[in-house]
């Protein structure tokens, strides 16, 4: 507790001879205390809980709380309204309230649509304290309450959410003129257009409004921004600019006519506003370097892909061609080789054939040389059977064996030797199982 009680009774005079170190004598300590539960209710308990939980002493807590309070007061000060009043504004006719800048009247020009209700209330109070007609009268000036009426009208408009929106809709001072191409160059481009769209965004039914961003914004952000604004859902309305409807009741037709006219005007303005925003977006997107950049990036990526694809295709074609050529070459070679082989084979075959023929002739002639193994003139039957046997042997032998046999027989003139050679051959063939025992018996 920062407060203190005051006791009027006086303190005793210090007795003679009383002395202590540092003028303080500790003589005892407190009696034992009782444990009780304090009720966790009320601001002072909260302070106690804060001290207990943060383990602060009274003085520490006082200090911290004081610091926090100071901060709060500063926050309040920041919202203080201190704008110089335009002398011409003070002379305004309150009847022309539609033409007045309500924010300027309350001294909130720098806040405008951003002013909170609290700020408006506080601004109003401040202005009332200054401009109340009774106060002016007391100060001896004329009883002119014109500006006071302006203040009341401004407050009435701004504290009514519907009326405030109507006024904000047509509050030209809150608008930011789109920069010209000359102005919006380089870094300034983003700064200037940002403020334009920040101002435009105040009409949006959907909050928060995406930001315009800067040169380094990602493609998603930029796309989100443009999508948002191309599909802008605006609460902007133009009732405030309505021409007053005569309210005298005598000319109902005129009243209706005026109302219809107003309605049409509102619709027209609304459409114009939408068109204006669209044009604004078209303009900005046309000059937006980021879009170009993203386009380029996209194209580059696309081209790279295309080139890659083409290269791949080309390579594939070449590969196919080379393969085809190689295949053709191989086929041709193989064909040629086969042809050569064939020719070779034919010759060899013929040679072999010839050799076989020759050898056969040798074989046949050998039996003839041996006089068909007969003594004396061989009968026709013997010759026949011997030759049959020779044919049998030949038919059973392959050309090599025939050749070998022929080689053995060549040069042999003696019948016995020839016979021996044949016998050996027949025996070999019987051994090899080519002849059955008993066959070609005439050669044995």
């Amino acid at each position, binding site marked *: 507790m920062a407060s203190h009680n005051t006791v009027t009774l006086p*303190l005793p005079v210090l007795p003679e001879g009383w002395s202590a170190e540092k003028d303080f004598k500790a003589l005892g300590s*407190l*009696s*034992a*205390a009782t444990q*009780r539960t304090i009720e*966790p209710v009320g601001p*002072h308990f909260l302070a106690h*809980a804060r001290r207990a939980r943060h383990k602060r002493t009274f003085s520490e807590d006082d200090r911290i709380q004081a610091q926090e309070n100071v901060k709060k007061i500063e926050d309040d000060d920041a919202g203080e309204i201190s704008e110089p009043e335009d002398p011409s504004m003070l002379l305004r006719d309150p009847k022309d309230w539609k033409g007045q800048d309500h924010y300027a009247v309350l001294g909130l020009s720098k806040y405008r649509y951003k002013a909170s209700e609290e700020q408006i209330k506080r601004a109003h109070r401040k202005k009332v304290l200054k401009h109340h007609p009774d106060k002016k009268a007391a100060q001896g000036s004329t009883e002119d309450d014109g500006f006071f009426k302006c203040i009341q009208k401004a407050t009435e408009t701004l504290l009514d959410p519907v009326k405030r929106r109507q006024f904000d809709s047509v509050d030209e001072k809150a608008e930011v003129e789109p920069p010209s191409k000359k102005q919006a160059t380089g870094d300034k481009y983003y700064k200037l257009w940002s403020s334009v769209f920040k101002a435009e965004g105040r009409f949006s039914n959907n909050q928060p409004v995406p930001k315009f961003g800067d040169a380094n914004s990602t493609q998603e952000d930029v796309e989100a921004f443009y999508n948002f604004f191309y599909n802008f859902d605006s609460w902007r309305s133009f009732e405030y600019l309505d021409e007053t409807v005569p309210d005298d009741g005598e000319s109902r037709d005129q009243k209706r006519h005026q109302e219809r006219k107003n309605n049409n005007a509102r619709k027209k303005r609304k459409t114009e506003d939408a068109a204006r925003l669209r044009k604004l977006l078209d303009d900005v997107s046309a000059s937006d370097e980021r879009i170009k950049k993203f386009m380029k990036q996209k194209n580059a990526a696309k081209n790279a892909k295309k080139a890659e694809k083409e290269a791949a295709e080309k390579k594939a074609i070449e590969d196919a061609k080379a393969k085809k050529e190689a295949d053709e070459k191989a086929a041709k070679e193989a064909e040629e080789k086969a042809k050569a082989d064939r020719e070779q084979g034919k010759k060899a075959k013929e040679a072999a054939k010839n050799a076989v023929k020759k050898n056969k002739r040798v074989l046949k002639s050998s039996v003839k040389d041996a006089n068909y193994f007969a003594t004396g003139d061989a009968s026709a039957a013997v010759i026949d059977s011997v030759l049959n046997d020779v044919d049998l042997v030949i038919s059973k032998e392959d050309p090599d064996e025939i050749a070998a046999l022929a080689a053995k027989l060549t040069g042999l003139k003696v019948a016995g030797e020839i016979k021996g050679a044949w016998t050996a051959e027949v025996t070999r063939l019987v051994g090899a199982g080519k002849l059955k025992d008993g066959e070609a018996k005439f050669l044995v």
Partner: protein
Amino acid sequence: MGEESATNGSAPAQRHAIGISFGNSNSSIALTVEDKAEVIANEDGDRQIPSVLSYVDGEEYNGQQAKAQLVRNSQNTVAYFRDFLGQEFKSIDPTHNHASAHPIAFESTVAFEIQDKEGDEKSTVTVSEITTRHLKRLVQSASDFSGKSINSAVITVPTNFSESQKVALIKAAKDAGLEVLQLINEPIAALLAYDARPESKVADKIVVVADLGGTRSDVAVVASRGGMYTILATAHDFDFAGVHLDKVLEDHFAKEFIKWNTTDPRTIPRSYAKLKLEAEACKKSLSIGTNASFSIESLAEGADFASTINRLRYETIGRKVFEGFNRLIEGVVKKAGLDVLDIDEVILSGGTSHTPKIANNMRSIFPETTTILAPSTTPTAINPSELQARGAALQASLIESFEAEDIEQSTHPAVTTVKHLTNAVGVLAITGDETKGVFTPVIVAETAVPARRTIHINAPPAGGDVLIKVVEGGSHIKVTQIEKTAEEKEADAEDSDVDSDEEPEEKREKIWKIGKVLAEAAIKDVKKGGKVEVMINIAGDLAVTITAREVGGKGGVRGNLSAA
């Protein structure tokens, strides 16, 4: 109270909190707007919403509309159910439910068998469900009033609400979509409502909070120390409450009715219900005016009844009940080990506190110095029926912005259970007699530690060196019989009504007795007419720091006393 965590706390930013006083007979809801708590009316325009639910053909009625159903549809009307919450059937008192739906045992809790849907089938509705429905209606009214969806609340409960009752209440509230930020004790809520008034100062005082309700009276003695409250004693009474005053009127008029008719209206349920409602209305008008009429159409036997009563008669026939209140309050002061002289403030709370007789009785029980906060004795008093809801709303606005976890930690017994001084600590001052010291309390007994108090005390007129003697002090009551002075006798003669009996008058005083000496300190060379500032700071472990200096002077003396 550590059960706040039972409900899953919503983020503080989305909280819209109200204060609810949920009573056995009536409930009320309060909102804090710009640091000012206001009790709000429901759609019927009632600030005191009867805690009654009634069902007709599946349609739910709440509040005054439901109460009216007690006459015609008593079996489907649930009243006086708050105290059944979280209780077993064997431990409830169903007296007051005789004329409405009767409580029955259901599983481990209490339920009512009522026809709450269309058709003839009866369904068993637990008291928890009834509470949920009632709270839903209250929340709906508050949401409609404020235009925000109310999702959290501080609810007041009697000091003797058990842990299981608290859990049951929190659960019922949760089912009604309500996060219970905190349950606070009813007397403390009432006290908070008074202390939060801009004109009230933070002081060290002992307060008796008498919560006189419809079916029960709860009295608490609370030590308010620098805005921190400690309950010293409580008493609960179920025999002296609003309904007993109603009963007095019922009997009175029933007898009058019998004089002219043959039937006793108290024997016919419907007649009795009518009699009860009118008796309550009559009691309320007697709190405001000195005369009240009592009229019921077709009370019994088709006969209408009309009569009047004045306040004096009412106070005479209700004497027994009023004396019961007196005894209850005097008893609890004694229970706290205190004397009526120790009481600085009496707060009368609850609907029955409107009765002027009760406040007048308090006025005569307690000394002149005691403030009696009731509408008939203090014109600025807050409506006693609204105190608790207001206190709850104030507490709600205080803790609304805290995380549920923070609230739980702050209300944890480790934070709330602290040492309280048994003796006052003060300094000795002197009167004319310079040898004898007069004890001047700096920190009074029952102050929760850590505590810090500062006093400014005069130095002797001549200035010079002064002695500061810090001592413990106790108080006792000194009774002296005094002779009346001639003047007083004359005064008595003039208004010769109450006090003129010949008994010798007793003078009872609160006297400080000097106890243990704690420390001595000296301040030298105090200026003429100067003042000395003494600050005593007692830490949580009873270690004491004493700082003394001349006001406006430099330096000063500082000393420590270690804990015993």
